[in-house]
């Protein structure tokens, strides 16, 4: 656990938070942020596709069913909880459901790096789970809002929203390069792995530095979210992770793979979901969903969540 805290990735994230608190003038150029995002999605997709080409259908199908179930159920209970207990508006509850049902590619990457450092094997096809889990929850969240709101202002049909999500940059890169990695196979992978594999953790370190800068600035918004959101943003990921790990075990994944599935369940989206919600749920207040996803759940997962879920997996598997 201490070893995990002392990884360059986590330390860079903490440095970013510290820099933001110190009001540092450190700022990543906007182009660099976007470039790093493109890199991470391409690299995850490409490697995952190549690894998927090495896996059998039987290995992949049960984890896939588990993954899709997770991201269909999580938004449902998140929505219910937010409405009943949290007293959030329909739009806000739906947006939170979309974010927590969807997944974070960066948390996923940090999870892979964590396991690599501990030399625990993770099934190579896990990036395909990441790709499958990104979009359904967002569609469910938006649909929940439409069903439950009498004043549906946004008329875009759900089908159109689905098309936009599939063509949205994060899923397009992830799924596109899954396919490319799959088709290009070993020969193709070897041509590009010096860029997409070897320096991956270094790039992730830079990205987490930037993520820390933003998370640190958002810490001052924590009070806007209130105690409820703070508790939710920490407790629910733990619950989701536990369910995810158990489902992963059921689906025949090894401990590493199951932990990563748990971490996917525990993570909240920060690229696809916010963009979709801005357009489809303008009535939802970004303070709620961005604060909880970015300033609570994301740092929690990166810093202490991942090691905790690893402990939970150890308990479940032994």
């Amino acid at each position, binding site marked *: 656990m201490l070893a995990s805290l002392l990884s360059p990735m986590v330390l860079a994230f903490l440095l970013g938070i510290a820099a933001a608190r110190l009001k540092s003038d450190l700022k990543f150029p*906007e182009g660099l*942020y*976007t470039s790093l995002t493109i890199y991470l999605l391409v690299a995850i997709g490409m490697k995952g596709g190549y690894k998927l080409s090495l896996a059998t259908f039987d290995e992949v199908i049960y984890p896939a069913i588990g993954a899709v179930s997770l991201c269909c159920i999580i938004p449902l209970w998140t929505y219910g909880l937010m409405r009943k207990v949290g007293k959030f508006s329909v739009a806000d509850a739906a947006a939170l459901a979309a974010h927590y049902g969807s997944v974070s590619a960066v948390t996923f990457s940090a999870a892979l790096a964590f396991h690599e450092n501990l030399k625990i094997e993770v099934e190579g096809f896990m990036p395909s789970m990441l790709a499958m889990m990104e979009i359904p929850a967002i569609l469910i969240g938006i649909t929940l809002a439409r069903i439950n709101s009498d004043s549906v*202002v946004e008329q875009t049909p759900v089908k159109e929203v689905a098309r936009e999500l599939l063509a949205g940059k994060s899923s397009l890169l992830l799924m596109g390069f899954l396919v490319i990695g799959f088709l290009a196979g070993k020969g193709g992978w070897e041509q590009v792995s010096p860029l997409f594999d070897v320096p991956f953790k270094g790039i992730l370190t830079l990205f987490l530095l930037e993520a820390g800068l*933003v998370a640190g*600035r958002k810490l001052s918004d924590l009070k806007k979210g209130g105690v409820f959101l703070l508790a939710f943003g920490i407790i629910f990921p733990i619950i989701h992770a536990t369910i995810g790990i158990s489902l992963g075990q059921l689906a025949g994944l090894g401990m590493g793979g199951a932990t990563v599935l748990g971490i996917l369940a525990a993570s909240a989206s*920060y690229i696809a979901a*916010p*963009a979709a919600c*801005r*357009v489809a749920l*303008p*009535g939802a207040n*970004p303070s709620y969903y*961005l604060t909880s996803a*970015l300033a609570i759940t994301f740092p929690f997962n990166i810093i202490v969540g991942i090691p905790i879920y690893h402990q939970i997996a150890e308990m479940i598997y032994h």
Partner: protein
Amino acid sequence: MTQAYLLTIIGEEVLENVIEKDIMALGAKGFTVSKVTGRSQSSVRDNPWDGENIRIEIITSEEICLKIVQHLKDKYLERYPMITFFHPVTVLRMQHFY
């Protein structure tokens, strides 16, 4: 040299495409876009996580300008962080703009 109107719209980046389609449909002959950041009492739009803004500028006739403004008011202004304003400018080659 003729009098025309310069209409400026500042709003969320994610809306760029829809707004552009709308203004062309309402009769604008062209537009210019730049990336900006901004802050107001209700929005922090100066980093890629919260999202940033775009500024769309349209040179057009008073009539189309008012039509676009009305459309923005109906469709976006109450629901999205967005502002819009306009003022007269002198242009060359007026046939270019309306």
